[in-house]
Protein backbone atom coordinates (compact mmCIF):
# COMPACT_ATOMS: atom_id res chain seq x y z
CA UNK A 1 0.00 0.00 0.00
CA UNK A 2 1.34 3.41 -0.89
CA UNK A 3 2.09 5.84 1.97
CA UNK A 4 -0.47 8.31 0.68
CA UNK A 5 -3.22 5.68 0.66
CA UNK A 6 -2.18 4.58 4.14
CA UNK A 7 -2.42 8.16 5.43
CA UNK A 8 -5.86 8.68 3.92
CA UNK A 9 -7.11 5.34 5.28
CA UNK A 10 -5.78 6.25 8.72
CA UNK A 11 -7.76 9.51 8.77
CA UNK A 12 -10.77 7.70 7.34
CA UNK A 13 -10.61 5.04 10.05
CA UNK A 14 -10.42 7.69 12.76
CA UNK A 15 -13.35 9.54 11.24
CA UNK A 16 -15.45 6.36 10.90
CA UNK A 17 -14.94 5.65 14.59
CA UNK A 18 -15.41 9.17 15.91
CA UNK A 19 -17.79 10.61 13.27
CA UNK A 20 -16.90 14.08 14.50
CA UNK A 21 -15.30 16.07 11.67
CA UNK A 22 -17.79 15.62 8.85
CA UNK A 23 -20.82 15.90 11.10
CA UNK A 24 -19.61 19.07 12.81
CA UNK A 25 -18.59 20.61 9.48
CA UNK A 26 -21.93 19.84 7.85
CA UNK A 27 -23.82 21.14 10.88
CA UNK A 28 -21.75 24.32 11.04
CA UNK A 29 -22.01 24.85 7.27
CA UNK A 30 -25.77 24.42 7.45
CA UNK A 31 -26.04 26.92 10.31
CA UNK A 32 -23.83 29.43 8.53
CA UNK A 33 -26.02 29.08 5.44
CA UNK A 34 -29.20 29.53 7.49
CA UNK A 35 -27.85 32.62 9.25
CA UNK A 36 -26.71 34.24 6.03
CA UNK A 37 -29.84 33.23 4.12
CA UNK A 38 -31.95 34.64 6.91
CA UNK A 39 -29.99 37.89 7.16
CA UNK A 40 -29.49 38.50 3.45
CA UNK A 41 -32.93 37.38 2.32
CA UNK A 42 -34.66 39.44 4.99
CA UNK A 43 -32.69 42.38 3.68
CA UNK A 44 -33.46 41.65 0.03
CA UNK A 45 -37.17 41.10 0.79
CA UNK A 46 -37.20 44.47 2.55
CA UNK A 47 -35.61 46.17 -0.46
CA UNK A 48 -37.50 44.12 -3.05
CA UNK A 49 -34.48 42.29 -4.52
CA UNK A 50 -34.49 38.72 -5.78
CA UNK A 51 -33.45 36.39 -2.90
CA UNK A 52 -31.69 34.11 -5.42
CA UNK A 53 -29.13 36.89 -5.98
CA UNK A 54 -27.65 36.08 -2.58
CA UNK A 55 -27.74 32.30 -2.94
CA UNK A 56 -24.20 31.97 -4.31
CA UNK A 57 -22.85 34.10 -1.49
CA UNK A 58 -24.66 31.99 1.14
CA UNK A 59 -23.29 28.77 -0.30
CA UNK A 60 -19.67 29.96 -0.30
CA UNK A 61 -19.81 31.58 3.10
CA UNK A 62 -21.13 28.28 4.45
CA UNK A 63 -18.45 26.24 2.68
CA UNK A 64 -15.68 28.62 3.82
CA UNK A 65 -16.66 28.56 7.48
CA UNK A 66 -17.30 24.83 7.49
CA UNK A 67 -13.95 24.28 5.79
CA UNK A 68 -12.02 26.27 8.40
CA UNK A 69 -13.77 24.34 11.16
CA UNK A 70 -12.88 21.04 9.49
CA UNK A 71 -9.22 22.00 9.12
CA UNK A 72 -9.05 22.88 12.81
CA UNK A 73 -10.55 19.48 13.68
CA UNK A 74 -8.30 17.57 11.33
CA UNK A 75 -5.24 19.25 12.81
CA UNK A 76 -6.41 18.60 16.36
CA UNK A 77 -6.52 14.87 15.57
CA UNK A 78 -2.85 14.99 14.59
CA UNK A 79 -1.80 17.12 17.55
CA UNK A 80 -3.62 15.02 20.18
CA UNK A 81 -1.26 12.55 21.82
CA UNK A 82 1.57 13.94 19.66
CA UNK A 83 0.37 11.79 16.76
CA UNK A 84 2.07 14.24 14.40
CA UNK A 85 5.44 13.33 15.88
CA UNK A 86 4.74 9.71 14.97
CA UNK A 87 3.84 10.68 11.43
CA UNK A 88 7.02 12.72 11.07
CA UNK A 89 9.12 9.82 12.37
CA UNK A 90 7.52 7.40 9.92
CA UNK A 91 9.64 6.63 6.84
CA UNK A 92 7.37 8.69 4.62
CA UNK A 93 8.37 11.66 2.47
CA UNK A 94 7.11 15.05 3.56
CA UNK A 95 5.46 15.44 0.16
CA UNK A 96 3.48 12.22 0.65
CA UNK A 97 2.47 13.42 4.11
CA UNK A 98 1.15 16.64 2.60
CA UNK A 99 -0.70 14.96 -0.25
CA UNK A 100 -2.23 12.37 2.08
CA UNK A 101 -3.45 15.06 4.44
CA UNK A 102 -4.82 17.16 1.57
CA UNK A 103 -6.74 14.18 0.22
CA UNK A 104 -8.33 13.30 3.54
CA UNK A 105 -9.20 16.94 4.26
CA UNK A 106 -10.63 17.23 0.74
CA UNK A 107 -12.67 14.05 1.21
CA UNK A 108 -14.18 15.21 4.51
CA UNK A 109 -14.92 18.67 3.14
CA UNK A 110 -16.62 17.14 0.10
CA UNK A 111 -18.86 14.97 2.29
CA UNK A 112 -19.86 18.00 4.35
CA UNK A 113 -20.26 20.09 1.18
CA UNK A 114 -22.60 17.43 -0.27
CA UNK A 115 -24.91 17.83 2.73
CA UNK A 116 -24.76 21.63 2.54
CA UNK A 117 -25.32 21.54 -1.23
CA UNK A 118 -28.35 19.24 -0.96
CA UNK A 119 -29.99 21.60 1.54
CA UNK A 120 -28.94 24.57 -0.58
CA UNK A 121 -30.90 23.12 -3.52
CA UNK A 122 -34.02 22.60 -1.41
CA UNK A 123 -33.91 25.94 0.38
CA UNK A 124 -33.44 27.86 -2.84
CA UNK A 125 -36.05 25.84 -4.78
CA UNK A 126 -33.56 24.99 -7.50
CA UNK A 127 -34.51 22.66 -10.31
CA UNK A 128 -32.36 19.58 -10.82
CA UNK A 129 -30.86 20.66 -14.12
CA UNK A 130 -27.50 21.37 -15.74
CA UNK A 131 -26.96 24.40 -13.53
CA UNK A 132 -26.60 22.13 -10.53
CA UNK A 133 -23.93 20.15 -12.31
CA UNK A 134 -21.90 23.34 -12.67
CA UNK A 135 -22.49 24.28 -9.04
CA UNK A 136 -21.24 20.81 -8.06
CA UNK A 137 -18.14 21.14 -10.28
CA UNK A 138 -17.38 24.55 -8.77
CA UNK A 139 -17.85 23.18 -5.28
CA UNK A 140 -15.40 20.35 -5.97
CA UNK A 141 -12.83 22.76 -7.48
CA UNK A 142 -13.20 25.34 -4.73
CA UNK A 143 -13.07 22.75 -1.97
CA UNK A 144 -9.95 21.20 -3.47
CA UNK A 145 -8.08 24.50 -3.49
CA UNK A 146 -9.34 25.22 0.00
CA UNK A 147 -8.02 21.88 1.28
CA UNK A 148 -4.75 22.26 -0.63
CA UNK A 149 -3.73 25.53 0.94
CA UNK A 150 -5.60 24.89 4.20
CA UNK A 151 -3.57 21.78 5.00
CA UNK A 152 -0.30 23.70 5.05
CA UNK A 153 -1.86 26.71 6.80
CA UNK A 154 -3.17 24.45 9.57
CA UNK A 155 0.40 23.22 10.14
CA UNK A 156 1.66 26.81 10.16
CA UNK A 157 -1.04 27.87 12.61
CA UNK A 158 -0.14 24.91 14.83
CA UNK A 159 3.27 26.51 15.39
CA UNK A 160 1.82 29.80 16.63
CA UNK A 161 0.58 30.66 20.09
CA UNK A 162 -2.89 31.44 18.77
CA UNK A 163 -3.71 28.45 16.59
CA UNK A 164 -7.50 28.82 16.64
CA UNK A 165 -7.23 32.45 15.58
CA UNK A 166 -4.37 32.27 13.09
CA UNK A 167 -5.84 29.44 10.99
CA UNK A 168 -9.06 31.30 10.05
CA UNK A 169 -7.12 34.53 9.47
CA UNK A 170 -4.54 32.93 7.16
CA UNK A 171 -7.08 30.69 5.46
CA UNK A 172 -9.54 33.47 4.72
CA UNK A 173 -7.05 36.04 3.41
CA UNK A 174 -5.23 33.54 1.21
CA UNK A 175 -8.28 31.81 -0.27
CA UNK A 176 -10.43 34.90 -0.65
CA UNK A 177 -9.38 35.65 -4.27
CA UNK A 178 -10.36 32.08 -5.19
CA UNK A 179 -13.63 32.34 -3.26
CA UNK A 180 -14.45 35.60 -5.05
CA UNK A 181 -13.99 33.85 -8.40
CA UNK A 182 -16.07 30.85 -7.22
CA UNK A 183 -18.90 33.07 -5.98
CA UNK A 184 -18.81 34.96 -9.29
CA UNK A 185 -19.06 31.74 -11.26
CA UNK A 186 -21.81 30.29 -9.04
CA UNK A 187 -23.86 33.47 -9.24
CA UNK A 188 -23.60 33.45 -13.03
CA UNK A 189 -24.58 29.80 -13.24
CA UNK A 190 -27.65 30.36 -11.07
CA UNK A 191 -28.54 33.40 -13.13
CA UNK A 192 -28.32 32.11 -16.70
CA UNK A 193 -26.71 28.66 -16.59
CA UNK A 194 -23.33 29.82 -17.88
CA UNK A 195 -20.54 30.11 -15.30
CA UNK A 196 -18.21 31.94 -17.66
CA UNK A 197 -15.18 29.80 -18.50
CA UNK A 198 -12.94 32.57 -17.21
CA UNK A 199 -14.17 32.27 -13.64
CA UNK A 200 -13.93 28.49 -13.71
CA UNK A 201 -10.40 28.74 -15.10
CA UNK A 202 -9.47 31.18 -12.32
CA UNK A 203 -10.67 28.77 -9.64
CA UNK A 204 -8.79 25.91 -11.33
CA UNK A 205 -5.66 28.07 -11.64
CA UNK A 206 -5.77 28.87 -7.92
CA UNK A 207 -6.13 25.13 -7.20
CA UNK A 208 -3.03 24.25 -9.18
CA UNK A 209 -0.89 27.13 -7.91
CA UNK A 210 -1.82 26.58 -4.26
CA UNK A 211 -1.24 22.85 -4.51
CA UNK A 212 2.15 23.09 -6.23
CA UNK A 213 3.51 25.89 -4.03
CA UNK A 214 2.25 24.26 -0.82
CA UNK A 215 3.71 20.90 -1.86
CA UNK A 216 7.11 22.52 -2.47
CA UNK A 217 7.30 24.38 0.84
CA UNK A 218 5.52 21.89 3.12
CA UNK A 219 8.74 20.29 4.36
CA UNK A 220 9.91 23.59 5.88
CA UNK A 221 6.79 23.81 8.02
CA UNK A 222 7.10 20.38 9.63
CA UNK A 223 10.87 20.21 10.06
CA UNK A 224 12.25 19.92 13.56
Amino acid at each position, binding site marked *: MSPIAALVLKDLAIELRRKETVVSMAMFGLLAMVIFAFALQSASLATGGDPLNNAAAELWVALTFAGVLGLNRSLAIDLDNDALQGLLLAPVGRGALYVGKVLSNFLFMLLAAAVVLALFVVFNNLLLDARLLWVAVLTVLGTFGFAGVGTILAMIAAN*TRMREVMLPILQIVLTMPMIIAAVGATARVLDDGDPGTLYVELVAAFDIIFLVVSYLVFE*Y*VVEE
Partner: protein
Amino acid sequence: MKDRTLGIVTLAAFVAALYFALIYAPTETTMGEVQRIFYFHVPAGITSYVAFLVVGVGSIAFLATRDPKWDRLAYCSAEVGVVFAGANIALGMLWAKPVWGIWWTWDARLTLQLLLALIFVAYLMVGAYISDASRRAPIQAVVGVLGAVNVPINYLAIRIWRTQHPSPVIAGGEGSGLDADMGIALAVAGAAVGLLYVYLLRRRLAVERTRQEVEYLEQVVTAQ
Protein backbone atom coordinates in the same frame (compact mmCIF):
# COMPACT_ATOMS: atom_id res chain seq x y z
CA MET B 1 26.38 57.80 6.84
CA LYS B 2 25.22 56.23 3.57
CA ASP B 3 21.67 56.07 4.88
CA ARG B 4 21.85 59.75 5.71
CA THR B 5 22.86 60.66 2.16
CA LEU B 6 20.07 58.48 0.82
CA GLY B 7 17.64 60.22 3.16
CA ILE B 8 18.64 63.63 1.89
CA VAL B 9 18.38 62.48 -1.72
CA THR B 10 14.92 61.05 -1.00
CA LEU B 11 13.83 64.32 0.58
CA ALA B 12 15.11 66.28 -2.43
CA ALA B 13 13.34 63.85 -4.77
CA PHE B 14 10.08 64.42 -2.89
CA VAL B 15 10.44 68.20 -3.18
CA ALA B 16 10.98 67.76 -6.93
CA ALA B 17 8.07 65.30 -7.12
CA LEU B 18 5.77 67.79 -5.39
CA TYR B 19 6.78 70.45 -7.90
CA PHE B 20 6.21 68.16 -10.87
CA ALA B 21 2.95 66.71 -9.55
CA LEU B 22 1.38 69.92 -8.24
CA ILE B 23 2.71 72.63 -10.56
CA TYR B 24 4.42 71.22 -13.65
CA ALA B 25 1.80 68.64 -14.68
CA PRO B 26 -1.23 70.06 -16.52
CA THR B 27 -4.59 70.00 -14.76
CA GLU B 28 -6.72 67.06 -15.85
CA THR B 29 -9.78 68.26 -17.79
CA THR B 30 -12.61 66.25 -16.25
CA MET B 31 -11.42 65.60 -12.71
CA GLY B 32 -9.53 68.82 -12.06
CA GLU B 33 -6.88 69.34 -9.42
CA VAL B 34 -7.78 66.23 -7.40
CA GLN B 35 -6.40 64.05 -10.18
CA ARG B 36 -2.89 65.04 -8.98
CA ILE B 37 -3.28 62.41 -6.26
CA PHE B 38 -2.60 60.01 -9.14
CA TYR B 39 1.15 60.87 -9.09
CA PHE B 40 1.52 59.38 -5.62
CA HIS B 41 -1.34 56.90 -5.58
CA VAL B 42 -0.03 54.81 -8.50
CA PRO B 43 3.67 54.71 -7.40
CA ALA B 44 2.59 53.71 -3.87
CA GLY B 45 0.60 50.81 -5.32
CA ILE B 46 3.42 49.65 -7.60
CA THR B 47 5.93 49.99 -4.75
CA SER B 48 3.75 47.82 -2.52
CA TYR B 49 3.79 45.14 -5.25
CA VAL B 50 7.59 45.40 -5.45
CA ALA B 51 7.89 45.23 -1.65
CA PHE B 52 5.74 42.09 -1.51
CA LEU B 53 7.70 40.47 -4.33
CA VAL B 54 10.86 41.21 -2.33
CA VAL B 55 9.21 39.34 0.57
CA GLY B 56 8.73 36.37 -1.74
CA VAL B 57 12.28 36.46 -3.10
CA GLY B 58 13.76 36.94 0.39
CA SER B 59 11.65 34.07 1.73
CA ILE B 60 12.72 31.66 -1.02
CA ALA B 61 16.36 32.71 -0.61
CA PHE B 62 16.12 32.15 3.13
CA LEU B 63 14.60 28.68 2.74
CA ALA B 64 17.33 27.78 0.25
CA THR B 65 20.35 29.23 2.09
CA ARG B 66 19.21 29.58 5.75
CA ASP B 67 21.09 32.86 5.85
CA PRO B 68 19.26 35.10 8.39
CA LYS B 69 19.90 38.19 6.29
CA TRP B 70 17.29 36.98 3.77
CA ASP B 71 14.77 36.46 6.56
CA ARG B 72 15.42 40.01 7.76
CA LEU B 73 15.00 41.38 4.24
CA ALA B 74 11.67 39.58 3.76
CA TYR B 75 10.32 40.55 7.16
CA CYS B 76 11.32 44.23 6.91
CA SER B 77 10.12 44.54 3.32
CA ALA B 78 6.72 43.19 4.38
CA GLU B 79 6.40 45.87 7.06
CA VAL B 80 7.32 48.65 4.64
CA GLY B 81 5.12 47.10 1.94
CA VAL B 82 2.07 47.14 4.19
CA VAL B 83 2.66 50.86 4.82
CA PHE B 84 2.85 51.55 1.08
CA ALA B 85 -0.23 49.43 0.35
CA GLY B 86 -2.06 51.35 3.09
CA ALA B 87 -0.92 54.66 1.59
CA ASN B 88 -2.05 53.47 -1.84
CA ILE B 89 -5.52 52.56 -0.52
CA ALA B 90 -5.87 55.75 1.58
CA LEU B 91 -4.82 58.00 -1.33
CA GLY B 92 -7.22 56.08 -3.56
CA MET B 93 -10.05 56.81 -1.14
CA LEU B 94 -9.19 60.51 -1.03
CA TRP B 95 -9.34 60.52 -4.81
CA ALA B 96 -12.48 58.38 -5.07
CA LYS B 97 -14.60 60.51 -2.76
CA PRO B 98 -14.67 63.67 -4.92
CA VAL B 99 -14.56 61.83 -8.28
CA TRP B 100 -16.82 58.80 -7.71
CA GLY B 101 -18.73 60.25 -4.78
CA ILE B 102 -17.79 57.30 -2.56
CA TRP B 103 -14.81 56.33 -0.41
CA TRP B 104 -14.90 52.67 -1.26
CA THR B 105 -16.51 50.17 -3.59
CA TRP B 106 -16.16 46.37 -3.68
CA ASP B 107 -14.66 46.48 -7.12
CA ALA B 108 -12.21 43.68 -8.02
CA ARG B 109 -9.21 45.98 -8.10
CA LEU B 110 -9.86 47.63 -4.74
CA THR B 111 -10.83 44.38 -3.08
CA LEU B 112 -7.73 42.52 -4.27
CA GLN B 113 -5.37 45.30 -3.19
CA LEU B 114 -7.00 45.35 0.25
CA LEU B 115 -6.65 41.56 0.46
CA LEU B 116 -2.99 41.74 -0.56
CA ALA B 117 -2.31 44.19 2.27
CA LEU B 118 -4.22 41.94 4.69
CA ILE B 119 -2.25 38.87 3.56
CA PHE B 120 0.95 40.57 4.63
CA VAL B 121 -0.58 41.83 7.86
CA ALA B 122 -1.36 38.15 8.53
CA TYR B 123 2.25 37.32 7.57
CA LEU B 124 3.50 39.77 10.21
CA MET B 125 1.04 38.33 12.75
CA VAL B 126 2.35 34.81 12.16
CA GLY B 127 5.86 36.02 12.95
CA ALA B 128 4.70 37.81 16.08
CA TYR B 129 2.83 34.78 17.43
CA ILE B 130 5.60 32.19 17.13
CA SER B 131 7.51 31.97 20.41
CA ASP B 132 10.27 29.62 19.27
CA ALA B 133 12.82 31.88 17.54
CA SER B 134 14.40 29.10 15.48
CA ARG B 135 11.00 28.00 14.12
CA ARG B 136 9.78 31.52 13.37
CA ALA B 137 11.96 32.29 10.36
CA PRO B 138 11.24 29.20 8.19
CA ILE B 139 7.52 29.20 8.96
CA GLN B 140 7.18 32.89 8.27
CA ALA B 141 9.13 32.37 5.04
CA VAL B 142 6.58 29.77 3.92
CA VAL B 143 3.76 32.25 4.54
CA GLY B 144 5.83 34.84 2.65
CA VAL B 145 6.05 32.56 -0.38
CA LEU B 146 2.32 31.75 -0.30
CA GLY B 147 1.55 35.47 0.05
CA ALA B 148 3.90 36.67 -2.68
CA VAL B 149 2.35 34.18 -5.12
CA ASN B 150 -0.75 36.35 -4.89
CA VAL B 151 1.01 39.40 -6.34
CA PRO B 152 1.16 38.14 -9.96
CA ILE B 153 -2.17 36.33 -9.57
CA ASN B 154 -3.88 39.49 -8.38
CA TYR B 155 -2.23 41.53 -11.10
CA LEU B 156 -3.52 39.14 -13.76
CA ALA B 157 -6.90 38.68 -12.09
CA ILE B 158 -7.45 42.43 -12.07
CA ARG B 159 -6.83 42.57 -15.81
CA ILE B 160 -9.05 39.58 -16.46
CA TRP B 161 -11.85 40.95 -14.33
CA ARG B 162 -11.62 44.33 -15.98
CA THR B 163 -12.03 42.92 -19.45
CA GLN B 164 -14.88 40.76 -18.19
CA HIS B 165 -16.72 43.63 -16.56
CA PRO B 166 -15.53 46.94 -18.02
CA SER B 167 -16.30 49.30 -15.22
CA PRO B 168 -16.25 53.06 -15.84
CA VAL B 169 -15.17 53.86 -12.29
CA ILE B 170 -11.69 52.40 -12.71
CA ALA B 171 -10.88 53.86 -16.11
CA GLY B 172 -9.77 57.22 -14.70
CA GLY B 173 -6.19 58.43 -15.00
CA GLU B 174 -3.90 55.80 -16.36
CA GLY B 175 -4.24 53.30 -19.17
CA SER B 176 -5.45 54.74 -22.44
CA GLY B 177 -2.56 57.10 -23.09
CA LEU B 178 -1.06 59.70 -20.79
CA ASP B 179 -0.12 63.29 -21.58
CA ALA B 180 3.68 63.59 -22.00
CA ASP B 181 4.02 66.14 -19.17
CA MET B 182 1.88 63.96 -16.93
CA GLY B 183 4.18 61.06 -17.80
CA ILE B 184 7.22 63.06 -16.68
CA ALA B 185 5.53 64.02 -13.41
CA LEU B 186 4.60 60.38 -12.82
CA ALA B 187 8.19 59.28 -13.47
CA VAL B 188 9.60 61.85 -11.01
CA ALA B 189 7.05 61.03 -8.31
CA GLY B 190 7.59 57.32 -8.95
CA ALA B 191 11.34 57.71 -8.45
CA ALA B 192 10.74 59.64 -5.20
CA VAL B 193 8.37 56.98 -3.84
CA GLY B 194 10.77 54.23 -4.91
CA LEU B 195 13.65 55.97 -3.11
CA LEU B 196 11.49 56.31 -0.01
CA TYR B 197 10.90 52.53 -0.08
CA VAL B 198 14.62 51.81 -0.34
CA TYR B 199 15.39 54.32 2.42
CA LEU B 200 12.74 52.99 4.81
CA LEU B 201 13.76 49.41 4.09
CA ARG B 202 17.43 50.15 4.82
CA ARG B 203 16.58 51.94 8.06
CA ARG B 204 14.26 49.13 9.13
CA LEU B 205 16.97 46.56 8.33
CA ALA B 206 19.49 48.49 10.43
CA VAL B 207 17.07 48.53 13.37
CA GLU B 208 16.41 44.80 12.96
CA ARG B 209 20.14 43.95 12.80
CA THR B 210 20.74 45.92 16.00
CA ARG B 211 17.80 44.24 17.70
CA GLN B 212 19.09 40.78 16.82
CA GLU B 213 22.57 41.72 17.98
CA VAL B 214 21.20 42.89 21.34
CA GLU B 215 19.20 39.69 21.61
CA TYR B 216 22.32 37.64 20.94
CA LEU B 217 24.39 39.59 23.48
CA GLU B 218 21.63 39.15 26.06
CA GLN B 219 21.80 35.41 25.57
CA VAL B 220 25.59 35.44 25.92
CA VAL B 221 25.41 37.49 29.12
CA THR B 222 22.66 35.42 30.73
CA ALA B 223 24.43 32.19 29.78
CA GLN B 224 27.51 33.18 31.76
